[in-house]
C-alpha cells in the first residue's frame, strides 16, 4: 500500500488545495495502515475504502475494473438497456423530409426486392412506394402483401393508408378488418403465453430455458413490430448465455433490431462486442463478413464516409447472400464505391478500390460504379458525374443511401472540381463549365457571369478554402494562387515571433503579479496591503 502511496504525490500536488488534501490523506492512510496491521485486512480493500472516502475515484489508477470485478455492482445488462433506450429515444423521432423521385429508376422492382429477405423487404417496398410516384402502386401492393404474411398489424395499416393516398380505388386500399382483429388477438395471446412460459422457466432456475424464453419473446416482439420490447428482451438474454455461440447469435439479433430502428450507436457498440467475442475460429470467419458489412453501414449513417469506405472495402467476398436481411453484395459495392469516391483521392481510389482483390468481386456486380471510379481516376469527370447522375433515382430509392445521397454527391462534385484544378495554373471558366455544368452552358446566355450558379458554386468553394484559386471575371479565368514562399516564410516568422513575445510577456507579468500579491481579489476592507497573507493561503498546513 505504501508503494501505491508514494507514487501519488505528483498527481495530488497539483494545486494548493491538493497539498492540504494530500496531508490529510497522508494522515488518513497512516491510520489505515495501522488498521490493516491490526485487522489483517487486504490492502486492496483499504484502497477501496480510501477511494470512497476521498470521493474522487478517478485519482486512483484505473485498475478497479480488473482487480475488483465484483465492485461494479448491478448487472451491466440493465445499464445497457437503459443506455440503449436513451439513444433510441434520441434517434427514432427523426422527421424525414419526404423525398419524391420523379425519374424512373433503372431497376426492376420484383428482381430488386427478391434479393432481400426478412423485414427489410417491407421497409424497402414501403419506401419506394412513398417516394417514387411511378412505382408507388406496385410497391405498396407488394408491401401490403408482405405485411399480411407477417404478424405486424401496424405495418399493414400504414401500407394501406399510403396506398389509399395514391390509389384510392384499388381493392387493396381498404383495411381487411377481420385479418387485423384476428392477428391482434393472436399476437396478444401469444405474448401472454410466452411471458407466462418465461415466468415458469425463471422459477425453475434453468439458465438455458430462461435464455430461450427470452429469445422466443424477443423474436415474437420483433415479428410483431414492437422493436423496443424486442431489444429489451434480447438484451435480457445476456445473463443467461453460456456459450460463445449464444452470445454471437444474441448480438446479431440485437444488431438487426437496432438496424431497423436506425439506432446506429447501438449497432456500433454491438459490432464492437461481436468483434471481441471469443467464438470458434471457423464461426468467427463466417461472421466476420457480416460484422464488417454492418459496421460499415453504421459508419456511413454516422457520416464518417472515409471510415465507412474503408470498412466496405474490407468486407470479405464470402458475404454472398448470407446477410440478405440487412445488406446484399450489390449494396456493398454501391455504398462502398460511392463512399470511396466521396472521400478518397485519386491515388487511393486506384490503389484500394480498383486494384483491390476482394472488393473486385463486389464491383463486378455493379459495373457502372466501377466505370465511374475508373473515369474519376482518369480525369474524366464529366463521364463519372454523368453515370452517377443517371443512377441518382435508384440510390434515392435505397433505404440506407437515400439520406446521404445529396451530401455524398456534393462531395464527389467538389472533389472532382478540386482535382480538376490541380494540374492547371489558370483555366478558363468556359471549359470548366462545360465539364461541371453542361446544363448551365446550354441554358444561359452568359454562363460565366458572376450570377450564374456555377460561378457562385466556385465562389463558395473558394471561400470555404477548398479551392486555392481566384476568379478573374474580366478574362473569364480561374487563376490558382501562387504562393510566394519567401514572403510567406517571412510573414509567418514575424507573426510567430510577435505571438511568442506577447505570450511570454503575459506570462512573465502573471508571475510578477502573483509574486507581488497583486492579483485581483475582492475588497475585504483590509485594502491591498494583505499581500503576504494572501500569498500564504496554506499557512495552517505548515508544521
Amino acid at each position, binding site marked *: 500500500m*505504501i508503494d501505491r*502511496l*508514494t507514487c501519488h*504525490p*505528483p498527481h495530488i*500536488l*497539483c*494545486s494548493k488545495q491538493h497539498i492540504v488534501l*494530500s*496531508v490529510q490523506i*497522508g494522515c488518513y492512510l497512516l491510520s489505515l495502515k495501522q488498521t490493516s496491521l491490526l485487522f489483517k485486512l487486504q490492502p486492496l480493500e483499504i484502497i477501496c475504502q480510501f477511494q470512497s472516502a476521498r470521493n474522487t475515484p478517478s485519482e486512483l489508477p484505473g485498475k478497479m475494473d480488473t482487480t475488483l470485478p465484483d465492485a461494479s455492482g448491478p448487472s451491466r445488462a440493465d445499464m445497457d438497456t437503459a443506455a440503449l433506450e436513451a439513444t433510441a429515444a434520441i434517434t427514432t423521432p427523426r422527421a424525414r423530409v419526404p423525398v419524391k423521385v420523379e425519374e424512373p429508376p433503372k431497376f426492376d422492382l420484383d428482381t430488386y426486392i427478391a434479393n432481400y429477405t426478412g423485414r427489410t423487404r417491407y421497409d424497402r417496398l414501403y419506401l419506394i412506394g412513398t417516394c417514387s410516384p411511378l412505382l408507388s402502386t406496385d410497391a405498396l401492393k407488394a408491401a401490403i402483401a408482405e405485411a399480411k404474411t407477417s404478424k405486424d398489424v401496424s405495418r399493414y395499416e400504414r401500407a394501406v393508408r399510403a396506398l389509399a393516398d395514391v390509389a384510392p380505388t384499388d381493392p387493396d386500399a381498404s383495411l381487411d378488418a377481420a385479418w387485423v382483429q384476428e392477428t391482434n388477438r393472436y399476437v396478444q395471446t401469444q405474448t401472454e403465453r410466452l411471458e407466462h412460459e418465461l415466468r415458469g422457466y425463471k422459477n425453475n432456475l434453468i439458465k438455458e430455458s430462461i435464455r430461450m424464453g427470452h429469445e422466443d419473446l424477443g423474436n415474437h416482439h420483433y415479428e410483431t413490430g414492437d422493436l423496443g420490447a424486442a431489444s429489451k428482451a434480447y438484451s435480457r438474454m445476456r445473463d443467461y448465455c453460456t456459450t460463445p455461440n449464444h452470445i454471437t447469435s444474441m448480438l446479431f439479433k440485437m444488431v438487426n433490431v437496432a438496424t431497423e430502428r436506425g439506432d446506429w450507436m447501438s449497432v456500433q457498440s454491438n459490432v464492437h462486442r461481436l468483434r471481441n467475442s471469443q467464438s470458434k475460429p471457423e464461426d468467427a470467419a463466417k461472421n466476420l463478413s457480416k460484422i464488417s458489412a454492418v459496421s460499415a453501414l453504421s459508419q456511413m449513417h454516422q457520416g464518417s464516409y472515409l471510415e465507412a469506405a474503408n470498412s466496405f472495402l474490407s468486407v470479405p467476398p464470402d458475404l454472398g447472400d448470407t446477410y440478405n436481411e440487412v445488406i446484399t453484395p450489390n449494396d456493398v459495392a454501391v455504398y462502398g464505391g460511392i463512399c470511396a469516391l466521396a472521400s478518397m483521392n485519386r491515388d487511393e481510389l486506384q490503389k484500394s478500390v480498383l486494384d483491390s482483390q476482394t472488393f473486385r468481386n463486389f464491383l463486378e456486380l455493379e459495373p457502372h460504379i466501377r466505370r465511374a471510379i475508373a473515369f474519376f481516376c482518369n480525369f474524366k469527370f464529366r463521364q463519372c458525374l454523368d453515370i452517377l447522375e443517371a443512377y441518382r433515382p435508384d440510390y434515392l430509392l435505397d433505404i440506407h443511401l437515400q439520406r446521404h445521397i445529396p451530401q455524398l454527391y456534393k462531395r464527389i462534385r467538389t472533389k472532382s472540381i478540386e482535382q480538376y484544378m490541380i494540374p492547371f495554373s489558370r483555366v478558363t471558366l468556359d471549359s470548366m463549365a462545360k465539364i461541371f455544368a453542361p446544363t448551365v452552358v446550354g441554358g444561359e446566355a452568359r454562363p460565366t457571369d*458572376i450570377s450564374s450558379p456555377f460561378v457562385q458554386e466556385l465562389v463558395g468553394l*473558394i*471561400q470555404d478554402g477548398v479551392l486555392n484559386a*481566384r*476568379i*478573374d*471575371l*474580366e478574362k473569364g*479565368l480561374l*487563376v490558382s*494562387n*501562387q*504562393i*510566394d514562399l519567401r*514572403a510567406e516564410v*517571412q510573414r509567418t516568422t*514575424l507573426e510567430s*515571433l*510577435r505571438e*511568442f*513575445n*506577447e*505570450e*511570454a*510577456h*503575459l*506570462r*512573465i*507579468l*502573471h*508571475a*510578477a*503579479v*502573483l*509574486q*507581488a500579491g*497583486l*492579483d*485581483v*481579489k*475582492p475588497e475585504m476592507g483590509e*485594502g*491591498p*496591503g494583505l499581500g503576504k497573507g494572501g*500569498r*500564504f493561503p496554506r499557512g495552517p*498546513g*505548515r*508544521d
Partner: protein
Amino acid sequence: MHHGATSKLYCVRHCLRLRGDERQVMRYERHQMLRIRSMTCQIISYNLSGRNVVGQGKRDESKVWRGVSIPLSDLPTFPGSPNNHHNSPTSHFSTNIHIPTTVGFLLQTSYQTSLLPPLLFSSSSNLESPSYCNPDTTKAKESRNRTHLCAFVAKLSCALLSYLARMTLLSDIISASAHLHSSNHLPSDEYDRRIRELVEYFRRLQTTKALESFANDESFLDRFDPAIDSIPFLFVLRVQIQKVQELNADLYPADIRPSGKLWTRAAHFLTSFDGVQVRYAGREWRLLVELVGQASQAASTPLLGATLVKDAMLRLDPSCAVFTSTHLLLVRLCLQAKAYSCALPVLNKRICHFPISLGRPSSEPSVLCADHGSSVSFMTEASEVSSKISYRDYLQYFLYGGMVYMALKEWRKALHFLGIVISMPSTSSVSLIMVEAYKKWVLVGLLEKGKLCPPPSMTTPHVVKVYQSLARPYIILAHTFERGDLKKLNAEIDAAMGVWSADKNLGLVAQVVAVFFSQTVIKLGKTFAALTMADLPKQVSLCAEVTGPAVSSLIMSRALNATLVQTKDHAESSMLRFSSIHSLPRLSHELDLQSQLKQEMKLMETLVINLGETNNNLGLSDEYVDTLHKGQVWSGSSEVNPTGGETGLEMDEDLMGDMS
C-alpha cells in the same frame, strides 16, 4: 583646492579673533545651525571703489537703512565656486554683488583673506571711532544716526549671522557633495556607502528643519548643477516648494505651476538629474514628479507635465521594466493632454516586474548604484520610487495604455495591452476595469483581425463567463460582423446605441463600421482576381453609389492593393483588378520586414533578461523557500527518503505551474 568644513570654520573664527574683540563669542557646531550668544559680531565690509565705507553709507543713508529689509538672498552671494579665487579682487566682486547698494558684506574665508585684505570695522563699540563718523554732521543728527546705525548694524549682524550659519551649512553641503564627487572612481560599494551617508545627512537636516534657512534663497540652487549634485538640489528644491506651499496655503501656487520660478527649477532638475544618485532618494524624487504632474494638471497644461514626467522616468530607469505609480500618472497625463505619442517611449517598454520587497529585513541592503542588468534590483518597495500599488493601478495603466494605442490606431499593441488587463489572475471576483477592457478588446479585435478574438489562454474561465454576460451587446455585434451583413450590423449598432455611448465606445463602434467595408472588399480579393464594379455591391451588400468612391478611397489609401481599369466599352462599369499577392514592391518591403524582425528580436532579448530576473526573484521568494522546506518535511514524514529530492523538484514545478 577643497576646503573642508573644519578649516573653513577655523578661518571664520580666526578672522573674528583678528579684531581681538572679547565680546564676540561664537559657538560652532558641526552639522547644526550656529548658535550665537552675543548679539554683536564682527562685520566685515569692503568698499568696491576703495572709498570710505561709512562715508558712502552716510551719503546714501536712506538706501542703506532701507537695505536692512533686504532679504537675505539679496546679500552678496558667497563666492562658492573655488575657481574664482585667482581672479582680481575687483572682478571677483563685480561678479558676485547684486545689490544696488555700495555696501557689501563679505564673509571672510581663507582664500579671500589672501586675496582681499579687508577693511575691518563696525560692532557697536566701534561706532564712536572717528573713521566711521562724518565730522560734518551735527551732534543730534549724529546721535540719531548712531542709534539708527546701531539698530541697522544689529539687524545686519543678525542677518549676517544667519547668513553665516547658512554659509557654513552650505559649505558643509558643498564639501559633502564634493566628497562624493571625488569618489566617482571608487568601487561601487564604497560609493554606495558614501552616497547613503549623504542621503542620511540630508534626511537628518530635513527633520531638524535646518534646510528651512534655504527656503527663500533663490540663489542657492544656482550653485548646484543637478547633473552632478542631484541630491542636494533635490532636497533643497523640495524644501523650497514646501515653503511656498505653506506660505500661499495652496497646494499649487503660481511659483510651482508651469513657467513659475520653482517649476523651471524642477524642470531643469527632472531633465538633467543623475539617475544613479536619485536611486537613493526615490521617495523625494517621486514626490517631486507627482507634484509636477499634479501642478501641470491644476494649471490645465498636462502636456508640460507629461513630457517632464516621461523624461524623468526614462532618466531614472531607462528600461522602464518595473511598474511604478508614476507610470499611471504619465498615461493619465498623456490622455488628458491628448498627446498620445508622448507616452510611447514608456509604453513601448515592456513592464515585467512590480516593486517587490527584496529579501528579509535582516539582509544587507543591496548596492543600488551598481550596474544592474535589470532595474528590478533598485526599484524596490523599500526605495519608495513608487507609492503603494494596488491591482487597480496596474489594471488602469494597461487599460489607459491600450487607449493610447487605440488613439494612435496601433490596434495590435492596443490588443496586447487590453489582453493583459483581461487575463490578469483573479480570485473569485472580477474588476470592472477588466470588464471595460474586455468591451474594448472585442471592438479592437474586430478592427485588427475582423473577428471576435477569444481572450488569452491564461484567462480564468469564470472570468470569461462574467465577461460574456456583462458585455453581451459587444459579443452580439462581433457575431454580426463576422456574419458579414452590413444591414444587420447597422441595425445592431443602432439598437444598442445607448450602450455604446454609456461605455464611451461610440468612436470605436463607428470605426468598426468603416473597417467592415474595407475588410469585406479585401476578403473579396482572396476570391476574385478581377470583377466589375457593377458586380461588387452584390457581394458587399451595399448600394452602388456608395461603393465606387469607397473603393477608390481604399485603393488610394493603400489599404487595398488593387487597380481600377476602365474597360473600352464605356457602357460597362470599370473593372476592379486585385493585385496578386507577390507583386508588392520588393526592396522596401524586405527592408521593412527586416527592421521589424530586428525589433522583435530585441524585444525578445529584453524579455529573456527579464525572465531570468523573474526566475531569480521567484527563487528567492519566501513562498518558494517555504514550499521547498515543506516538501522536504513531507517527504521525510512518509518514510521514503530516496524520493525526497524528487519531491522537492516536483514542488518546484507545481509552484511554477501555479504562477503562470
